């Protein structure tokens, strides 16, 4: 029987629109979460796919020693594609010329992600390579043609072997950002590695196995492989712990997406809670009547639980369909805009969205429902009787626990969830207090104003308890909105700063000392923006404060450790314990920042300035004595300053900078980076003909790739912004709806007392204006605080205060809340008194 009653009630309530807001809230939350998570899932998959190109693989296994062939075979059996990439330094000879090159011995399949591009002449137009050089052939970088005076078809000798140069390599996906410390690349086949005779015990070789495949296969292989790895010799890398600024940007993007989902969930939960509360309150009388007529608690519980479940199921289904449709449309649009297809999402977003809908619907309605069931039948005689507040804590436990659980599900990070949750709770309490304060302040101010204002402020105060809760959600919505806007701007700014339009797109290295002046004047004459030319003297750091750094054998291990650490840090991975690129200068390089000590200026005493990361790694402080060995000549200098270098700029950066008098007598080569616009690229060969010794490294391809990824991320952020705006608006409407009953009653009384319609409609507008403005103000404050924490803790950005928003926030809040409030109350004001009274009874 009870289910008949339940269906009947549900049908009528649906028809009467009583459940619309609640259904909309659930639909919205499911829609938002689903579209957002599918979208970010697909986008992330797309980003990862693109970024995997920077590794040329999904995972890379690296080692200083050879890697067992059976590990590759196992990977093959587990459906992974594999390819060798063995990298080492060697001298290359052609006729009388010789130069240091990077040999890259690769096997079929390389690159597993991304594409290798080649050209038929040095600095020529590149095209995608099909396959690899044939046996006995080598593909080499453009700059090698200058250094070795080569032509296509000439032979170069490497170790015991000779290779015929058949193509020019113009783009390798996995060159990384530390190129300027590297030598030009020579690509040969892995099968010919052995006959070069260069792979000897103790030679400095990095063996890499590239792997690519489905995520599940990779995970399965990882389970097999990881226990077999030796921490000291092996490193296992994915793009997430790659060392490029791109991978760091990608990480930020991921965190941003995750945060956006969290914001969406909290908003949706707020809407559901507000709607559920109102729904249950509206049913207090119904339950009292039911109980008076002899209904048992169980019957009532079943009747309303069934409502809830039916409503939830229907709303979740609608939400799923809508969410899917939205992401489909948006993705189509993005794909068209970016001219790229994004991989399909897995089942997780659907599970996540469904779970979010069900969990927030059930958990946030449980307490109001609990109260509803406990309404005493006596309410039929005493209308003021409501359910006891004895289990108030249950509400806090339920909603708090739910939000926390959702946080954990979304972020999959305990500490972040706990921090956000605790912060949110503290903030909520403070905001509630602030809201009360503002309301009573505006009430006082209202007493001095005209009658509409007075009425508005009185209304605001009368509903103070409800209003401060409303304000909390208005504030949250506005705050999230501001947060998204600001974060988006700051993130984009941050990224743009990393890659300004005039970012250098070439490095020139190995510049002879005699050529420095000529090259500088060439840059000036040709109007090519460039950095200073920095001298490079190779040298080793051997002692710190007289303490010898480890000898050769153990130093080997130290290299291992340092380079692995470097992999997740900055470039210059081959930095310490072995050859370092040392330089000298009178002035602090641009984009460097002194963090300790003082810059030397004119001081001619020998001294050195150390880069911050290195100083931390080696525990070097100002005043320490460092001993260097430069080609056999040793000297000791004090550290007089520590510097922070910006590794994201495409400029030469150095771990060790000496003052001029210390190093200037050592033989040096020079390095610079410069920008050459697209249309002038064909001049490059001519421009650099006078400097045959110099080598050029083209960064444009890499920069383009980064730009594209940033473009995708920006689009995603716009999408998130739109969703948060819609979600926020719905919460506002739900809130206004929740106060409607009371407003109607008031309006009837005031109308009956003869208050003119204009006065009433104005006072409603003013009330919403003030409510919105206060919410906006609180939101701005909360936004600044959370932004400060976020930027400090999550995004590693420098926090700034956004003064403009202190105006924008309140104004925005006032306008939006007033418009939404007025629209929701439109019918109320239009109705005449008789209709209103009728509706109330």
């Amino acid at each position, binding site marked *: *029987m*009870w289910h*008949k*009653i339940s269906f*009947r*009630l549900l049908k*009528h*309530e649906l028809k*009467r629109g*009583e459940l619309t807001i609640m259904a909309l809230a659930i639909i919205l939350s499911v829609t938002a979460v689903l579209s957002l998570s599918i979208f970010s899932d697909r986008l992330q998959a797309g980003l990862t796919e693109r970024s995997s190109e920077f590794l040329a693989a999904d995972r890379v296994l690296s080692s200083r020693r050879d890697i067992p062939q059976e590990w590759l075979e196992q990977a093959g059996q587990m459906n992974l594609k594999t390819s060798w990439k063995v990298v080492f330094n060697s001298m290359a000879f052609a006729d009388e010329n010789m130069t240091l090159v990077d040999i890259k011995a690769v096997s079929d399949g390389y690159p597993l992600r991304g594409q290798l591009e080649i050209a038929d002449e040095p600095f020529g137009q590149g095209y995608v390579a099909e396959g690899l050089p044939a046996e006995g052939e080598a593909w080499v970088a453009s700059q090698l043609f200058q250094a070795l005076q080569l032509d296509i078809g000439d032979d170069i000798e490497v170790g015991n072997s000779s290779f015929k140069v058949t193509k020019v390599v113009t783009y390798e996906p996995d060159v990384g950002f530390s190129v300027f410390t590297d030598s030009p690349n020579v690509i040969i086949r892995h099968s010919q590695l052995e006959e070069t005779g260069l792979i000897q015990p103790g030679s400095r070789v990095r063996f890499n196995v590239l792997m690519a495949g489905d995520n599940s296969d990779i995970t399965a292989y990882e389970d097999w492989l990881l226990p077999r790895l030796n921490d000291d010799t092996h490193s296992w890398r994915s793009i997430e712990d790659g060392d490029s600024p791109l991978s760091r940007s990608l990480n930020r993007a991921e965190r941003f997406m995750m945060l956006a989902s969290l914001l969406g969930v909290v908003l949706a939960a707020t809407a559901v809670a507000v709607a559920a509360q109102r729904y249950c309150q509206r049913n207090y*009388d*119904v339950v009292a*009547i*039911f*109980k*008076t*007529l*002899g*209904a*048992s*608690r*169980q*019957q009532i519980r079943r009747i309303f639980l069934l409502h809830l479940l039916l409503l939830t199921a229907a709303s979740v289904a609608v939400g799923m369909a809508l969410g899917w449709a939205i992401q489909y449309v948006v993705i189509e649009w993005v794909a068209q805009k970016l001219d790229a297809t994004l991989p399909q999402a897995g089942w997780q977003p659907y599970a996540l969205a469904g779970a979010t809908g069900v969990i927030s619907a059930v958990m946030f309605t449980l307490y109001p429902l609990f109260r509803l069931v406990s309404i*005493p*039948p*006596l309410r*039929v*005689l005493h209308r003021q009787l409501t359910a006891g507040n004895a289990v108030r804590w249950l509400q806090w436990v339920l909603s708090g626990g739910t939000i926390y659980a959702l946080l954990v599900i979304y972020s999959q990070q305990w500490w972040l969830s706990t921090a956000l949750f605790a912060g949110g709770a503290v903030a909520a309490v403070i905001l509630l207090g602030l809201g009360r304060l503002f309301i009573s302040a505006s009430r006082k101010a209202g007493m001095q104003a005209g009658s509409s204002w007075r009425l508005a402020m009185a209304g605001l105060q009368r509903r103070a308890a409800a209003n401060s809760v409303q304000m909390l959600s208005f504030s949250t919505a506005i705050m999230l909105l501001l947060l998204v806007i600001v974060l988006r701007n700051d993130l984009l700014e941050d990224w743009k700063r990393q890659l300004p339009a005039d970012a250098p797109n070439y490095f020139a290295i190995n510049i002879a000392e005699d050529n420095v002046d000529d090259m500088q004047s060439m840059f000036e004459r040709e109007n090519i923006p460039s950095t200073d030319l920095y001298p490079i003297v190779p040298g080793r750091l051997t002692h710190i404060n007289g303490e010898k750094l480890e000898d050769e054998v153990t130093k080997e291990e130290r290299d291992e450790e340092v380079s692995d650490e470097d992999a997740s840090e900055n470039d210059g991975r081959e930095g310490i314990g072995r050859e370092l690129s040392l330089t000298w200068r009178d002035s602090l390089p641009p984009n460097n920042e002194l963090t300790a000590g003082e810059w030397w200026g004119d001081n001619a005493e020998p001294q050195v300035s150390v880069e911050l990361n290195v100083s931390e790694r080696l525990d070097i402080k100002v005043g320490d004595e460092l001993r260097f060995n430069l080609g056999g000549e040793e000297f000791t200098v004090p550290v007089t300053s520590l510097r922070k270098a910006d590794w994201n700029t495409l400029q030469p950066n150095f771990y060790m900078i000496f003052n001029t008098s210390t190093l200037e007598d050592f033989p040096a080569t020079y390095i610079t980076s410069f920008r050459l616009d697209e249309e002038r690229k064909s001049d490059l060969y001519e421009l650099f003909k006078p400097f045959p010794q110099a080598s050029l490294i083209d960064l444009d391809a890499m920069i383009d790739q980064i730009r594209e990824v940033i473009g995708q991320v920006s689009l995603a952020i716009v999408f998130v912004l739109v969703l948060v705006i819609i979600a926020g608006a719905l919460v506002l409407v739900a809130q206004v709806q929740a106060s409607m009953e009371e407003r109607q009653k008031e309006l009837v009384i005031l109308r009956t007392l003869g208050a003119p319609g204009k006065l009433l409609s104005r006072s409603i507008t003013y009330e919403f204006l003030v409510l919105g403005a206060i919410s906006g103000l609180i939101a701005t404050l909360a936004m600044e605080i959370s932004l400060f924490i976020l930027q400090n803790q999550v995004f590693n950005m420098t926090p700034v205060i956004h003064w403009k928003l202190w105006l924008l926030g309140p104004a925005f809040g006032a306008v939006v809340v007033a418009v939404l409030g007025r629209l929701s109350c439109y019918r109320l004001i239009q109705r005449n008194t008789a209709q209103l009274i*009728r*509706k109330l*009874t």
Partner: protein
Amino acid sequence: MLIQAQQLEKTVDTSEGPLQILQPINVSINAGDTVAIVGASGSGKSTLLSLLAGLDLASSGEVLIENEKLSELDEEQRAKVRADKVGFIFQSFLLVPSLSALENVMLPAELAGHKGAEKEARELLAKVGLEDRWHHYPNQLSGGEQQRVAIARAFVGQPKILFADEPTGNLDAKTGGKVEELLFDLNKDYGTTLIVVTHDQRLAKRCQRVLQMDAGQLSEAAQDVA
């Protein structure tokens, strides 16, 4: 003896300390009686009604319905007693706004799990003259019509006792008179025990017994008719 109140007292806690709403009350009501409770507003009539119907619990004393002590029943069991034996009519009608007239009338029978609730409800609606308004919702009905629906609902399932708290209090004299007629007509048909709280002298006069409530004290009024 259908209903008995023995030393029934009600005290509530207010901000100014405990307030005794009902002095010890002793009253017995026989099956088939019609009893009016009259008295000034705030004298405790509704409170007494709520105790007799088991909507609320007494502070001390006892209510027995068919010799069953309400104080020994829990809330669920008292609900069961109401479902089986009691009907209600209120001053403010108290129809379920999201159910139609017919569904409102069916409600008690359905909650009690009776079969044939709809047929019975339709018959009762016909008796109160609203058979063609069955699909209307409370907000589509006038006050008098709503109270007629409430009367139909009160008789559904043939309760032994009917409690009415100022059933005509919200209605104008003419409509009130019509509602009153209906109430007594149906009561006669069904042979229900009627306990009605009222300000309406005329209504009170139609009852066999009139009880006077004065500041929580109940006494038999003079015009007791045999």
